């Protein structure tokens, strides 16, 4: 403790009213978000406890009950990301590096518009258009590729399978990932792009040498945001997916796993007693999954971030 205290004689700087007010407002806002998060967490834990410890009416344990839902949530989100991320990166690259400027602006605007469509609309489109459209190809897949565990027959008669739901999810998360990737790709230092071009790189080689390495952490971050939406998406999945609660990897069958969020939406209106606690408990699981996904992504981003390269 050798640090000298500031001289007491020094007069304190005058407090300017605008600074005081702004500090109070921003501090309140910061605290508010913590309070809200804590409130949600406490509510979830308190309401879930009876389901987690108590004997359940039908199943053996809470874990056995929530596992198929957790599986369905992760599986559908995984499939959606598998389809959405490459397409989103490709669209973002097209907008930033290939399209003529006028087309790029229009296309960027369209992609943003895609994000503004309510999920109910996506759900309706999934049921009314996408499911019937895909159903014949599911039959074909089950007949011809049925030996693959992913396409084991029988095929679904309605087309409302986990694959259809995942495609709908993919379309929904596409604009988020595309918009963020576009911003990141635009920020690639021009020096790095020119370095690649001056070595005789083609446009695509320049992208792999300069744009993608620079955007790596941003691609991961945007994918995680998209994943967050895919994991938590409720309405579209609840409408599209004809679920039986099975744990299966089959993409085209009539037996499909449900997701946590969709299951809560579908069952909560008629739930009473312990069922309410069970549903809230599953919500707690979803909350935990999202937290873990975010934490993991933070770690990955911290590890892959490169300095500006100047």
């Amino acid at each position: 403790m050798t640090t000298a205290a500031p001289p007491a004689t020094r007069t304190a700087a005058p407090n300017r009213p605008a600074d005081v007010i702004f500090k109070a407002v921003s501090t309140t806002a910061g605290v508010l978000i913590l309070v809200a998060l804590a409130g949600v967490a406490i509510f979830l834990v308190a309401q879930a406890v009876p389901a987690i410890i108590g004997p359940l009416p039908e199943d053996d344990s809470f874990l056995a009950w929530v596992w198929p839902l957790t599986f369905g949530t992760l599986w559908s989100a995984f499939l959606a990301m598998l389809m959405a991320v490459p397409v989103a990166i490709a669209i973002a690259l097209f907008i930033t590096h290939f399209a003529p400027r006028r087309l790029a602006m229009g296309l960027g605007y369209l992609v943003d518009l895609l994000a503004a469509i309510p999920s109910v609309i996506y759900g309706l489109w999934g049921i009314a258009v996408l499911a019937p459209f895909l159903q014949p190809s599911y039959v074909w897949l089950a007949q011809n590729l049925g030996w693959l565990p992913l396409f084991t027959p029988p095929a679904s008669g309605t087309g409302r399978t986990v694959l259809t739901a995942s495609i709908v999810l993919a379309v929904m998360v596409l604009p988020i990932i595309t918009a963020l990737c576009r911003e990141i790709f635009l920020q690639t230092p021009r020096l790095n792009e020119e370095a690649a071009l001056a070595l005789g790189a083609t446009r695509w080689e320049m992208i792999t040498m300069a744009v993608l390495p620079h955007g790596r952490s941003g691609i991961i971050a945007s994918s995680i945001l998209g994943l967050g939406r895919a994991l938590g998406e409720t309405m579209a999945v609840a409408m599209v997916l004809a679920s039986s609660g099975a744990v299966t990897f089959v993409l085209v069958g009539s037996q499909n796993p449900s997701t946590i969020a969709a299951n809560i939406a579908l069952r909560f209106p008629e739930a009473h007693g312990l069922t309410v606690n069970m549903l809230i408990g599953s919500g707690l699981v979803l909350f935990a999954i999202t937290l873990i996904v975010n934490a993991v992504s933070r770690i990955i981003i911290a590890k892959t971030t490169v300095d500006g390269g100047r």
Partner: protein
Amino acid sequence: MSKRIEVNDLDVYYGSFKAVEGVSVEIEPRSVTAFIGPSGCGKSTVLRTLNRMHEVIAGAWVDGEVLLDGANLYGPGVDPVNVRRQIGMVFQRPNPFPTMSIRENVLAGVLLNNRRMSRSDQDDLVERSLRGANLWNEVKDRLNIPGSGLSGGQQQRLCIARAIAVSPDVLLMDEPCSALDPISTLAIEDLIEELKQEYTIVIVTHNMQQASRVSDKTAFFNIAGTGKPGKLIEFGETTKMFSNPSVQATEDYVSGRFG
């Protein structure tokens, strides 16, 4: 290895704006040619037309010829990607690829052309290029650290190593020392003197002492006013350009009376 460049009556445009007008120069193999002139006079633009890097900016085009040993770089069917593989470039600020190691940076251009290169050939090339850029002794023990971890002067020499690793015919340098301290600048200038044995070098510089130190011939560019095209005022032996130029504007510029 080293080729002769002939520029015939070159005009450079950005869209409908004429940036540079009527440039004709002949650049001998194994020589250093310096482009000097005030900011905005088009010297960097002309340099970039020599490997078609100006085309990176949308709407840029040229009228006239640039001949590399007689072959027109702007002839029909000439791919700018191939042009840039023959004519290397070093930029104003060091720009190693930040995610690549020193070794990967040196190999970046070579692996574009020739992906199946044996490990030992790669090692040889990395050593040869880094020695050529006077960087080998400083980095030979840490070839696998990121190139962005080096000092500015070392990064610039890494960029030169990366450019010469592809064995270009010509090396273009766009103010290669303007972001460097005097010691690093000296290292680069010594390097230019050595590289001259093998390459045709064209260098843009704002530093007239540098131009007089390193170059054999000097081209002075000037601009009449904002919005007017830049022009080549005088081109000749560096010694003559700095001691006894034939145009008054050149004398004013090199003697520091303006610019």
